[in-house]
């Protein structure tokens, strides 16, 4: 009875689904919007620091830093494609294939983290950059660089854990296509953020 009433009530009374999406999906979208603002604030803080310091360092050599970060972009973009394929397979009811695509996504994500950590370790050990100091005399460089890329890497690692949970569950016959799609939304968002960090942090600071 109550569902019937809900179905016939007007849109303004919340009777029909105004967005025609699953509530999990709407929830993830709302989270993504708020997280997008977090990253925007950090990117603006970075831009602010950079513009207000005319002697901002440009420490990234073509090899390995720019090559590494380009490969990292490739990893994330490819992982987005495999994630789309996973959702596609799951929508067709092919759970095994979906799990395989998710594993591919996780492999690309893990490659991203490995390359990024190599990059970080080189900056810390060889170039002696820390969040509070660096040899170029602009301490804000390290602060903004590690905050931005660190928060992004944390998102990638959380995404890997999230996808791992989804992957093992769908193999065991749990979860539906919508759950894979929602995890995909999160993963694509992480990819999307990197599309801004890569040019603004790496390419704008490439040593020419």
């Amino acid at each position, binding site marked *: 009875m109550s569902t019937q009433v809900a179905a016939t009530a007007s849109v303004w009374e919340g009777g029909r689904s105004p967005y025609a999406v699953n509530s999990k999906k709407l929830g993830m979208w709302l989270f993504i919007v708020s997280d997008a603002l977090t990253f925007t604030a950090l990117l603006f803080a970075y831009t602010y620091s950079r513009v207000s310091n005319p002697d901002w360092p440009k420490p990234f050599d073509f090899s390995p830093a720019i090559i590494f970060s380009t490969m990292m972009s490739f990893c994330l973009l490819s992982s987005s494609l495999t994630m789309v394929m996973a959702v596609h397979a799951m929508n067709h009811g092919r759970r095994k294939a979906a799990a395989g695509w998710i594993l591919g996504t996780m492999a690309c994500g893990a490659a991203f983290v490995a390359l990024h950590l190599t990059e970080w370790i080189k900056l810390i050990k060889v170039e002696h950059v820390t969040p509070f100091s660096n040899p170029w005399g602009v301490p804000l460089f390290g602060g903004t660089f590690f905050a931005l890329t660190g928060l992004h890497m944390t998102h990638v690692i959380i995404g890997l854990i999230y996808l791992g949970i989804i992957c093992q569950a769908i193999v065991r016959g749990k979860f539906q296509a919508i759950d894979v799609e929602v995890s995909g939304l999160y993963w*694509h968002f992480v990819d999307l953020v990197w599309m801004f960090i890569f040019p603004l942090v790496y390419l704008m600071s490439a040593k020419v």
Partner: protein
Amino acid sequence: MSMHTEEVEQIDGATALTFTKVWIILLALTGVEVFLGYEQFATLIMLTALLGISIVKAALIIAYFMHLKFERLSLFLTLFPMLIFCIILMLIFLGDATRIPHMRPPL
């Protein structure tokens, strides 16, 4: 059978080929960005070009990979105008950043 295919098409919105095309375009745009990074443009022109390409890439990811193109318009209108507006509001601070270097007392 045709009914089934139609249903599946509607769920996915696009085919695997479309997604692969989008992926290739995204990779190509990344290549263009790296190329631009090594051209000797003025900082402002470079920043505008890189940001422009990034926004196009973000739009492609949101529209196709995140499926927003195939959702109802009401979802897009609820989520994005206010997000874009908030992001534009943050530009207010940047004017200060250009003034700060001129306001520093000499060492």
